[in-house]
């Protein structure tokens, strides 16, 4: 299995670009190469664990751990929280919680080797920082709510579910595109 070799190959090629461009930000990797490698990582996850990737439920688990800390009676009585408290383990000792933490580290490492680690608010040229941040908060609340409503986000439902040809996951994925394209026009100033 030369998954590791290919990773290093991409990293190395981009590092050389960085040196040539005097610390300039490097180009992103080829999307088809990344997609194929991502498919192999997903396949590896299925082969070893019998399940795919995801992230949104780890935030539900962190919320559960917090509620359980300050109001254990309420957490146990609420069916949504109680689901994560079963089994006698901390709600944080779970597959997706560790996977999400790893994803954060992996992303940071990737950004680090390509000189992309810096403080900035990414936005279009026609919008102020504070408006962008309020929109980010509002959009984040919407996305978080929606991901739990649909039992998954773009990783857990769209990517994983689509790979196993789960009907609901394909419906979910096309509804994401529908919702996003329907909204995009009204927010063009935020990004364009």
């Amino acid at each position, binding site marked *: 299995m030369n998954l590791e070799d290919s990773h290093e190959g991409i990293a190395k090629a981009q590092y050389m670009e960085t040196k040539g461009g005097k610390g300039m930000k490097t180009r992103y990797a080829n999307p*088809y190469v990344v997609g194929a490698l991502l498919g192999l990582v997903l396949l590896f996850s299925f082969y070893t664990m019998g*399940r795919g990737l995801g992230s949104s439920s780890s935030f539900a688990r962190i919320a559960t751990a917090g509620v359980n800390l300050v109001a254990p009676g309420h957490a146990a009585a609420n069916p949504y929280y109680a689901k994560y408290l079963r089994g006698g383990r901390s709600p944080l000792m779970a597959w997706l919680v560790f996977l999400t933490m790893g994803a954060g580290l992996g992303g940071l490492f990737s950004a680090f080797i390509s000189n992309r680690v810096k403080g900035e608010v990414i936005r279009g040229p026609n919008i102020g920082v504070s408006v962008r941040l309020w929109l980010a908060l509002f959009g984040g609340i919407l996305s978080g709510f929606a991901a739990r409503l649909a039992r998954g986000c773009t990783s857990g439902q769209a990517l994983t579910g689509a790979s196993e040809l789960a009907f609901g996951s394909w419906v979910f994925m096309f509804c994401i595109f529908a919702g996003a394209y329907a*909204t995009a026009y009204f927010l063009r100033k935020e990004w364009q």
Partner: protein
Amino acid sequence: MGPLYKFGWFDFAYSLQLAGLIGVLFGFLLERAGFGNARKLVAIFYLKDFAVLKVMFTAIVVCMLGLLFFSVFGWIDLSKIYLLPTYIWPQIVGGFVLGMGFVIGGY
């Protein structure tokens, strides 16, 4: 035969370490593709940059074919894989609202 965990090849504690490792690979690859940049992610909805589509669908096709071949070769028992259940209305509404949140917040 896979999934290895379901056939008792390793225990829960080891599975969490594996989750961390798979997570690192996952996050690394997403950042490689440029998914750490909100503007690049949202650009697909302005028909400017289709990297999101290319990465996602390539991954889906590779994994789908991999699962199929693994199953045909007898390397994986597909009945032991967690199949995401369909709850059609929550998934329709959730998908639509997530799409709105995606563009508003920049994911």
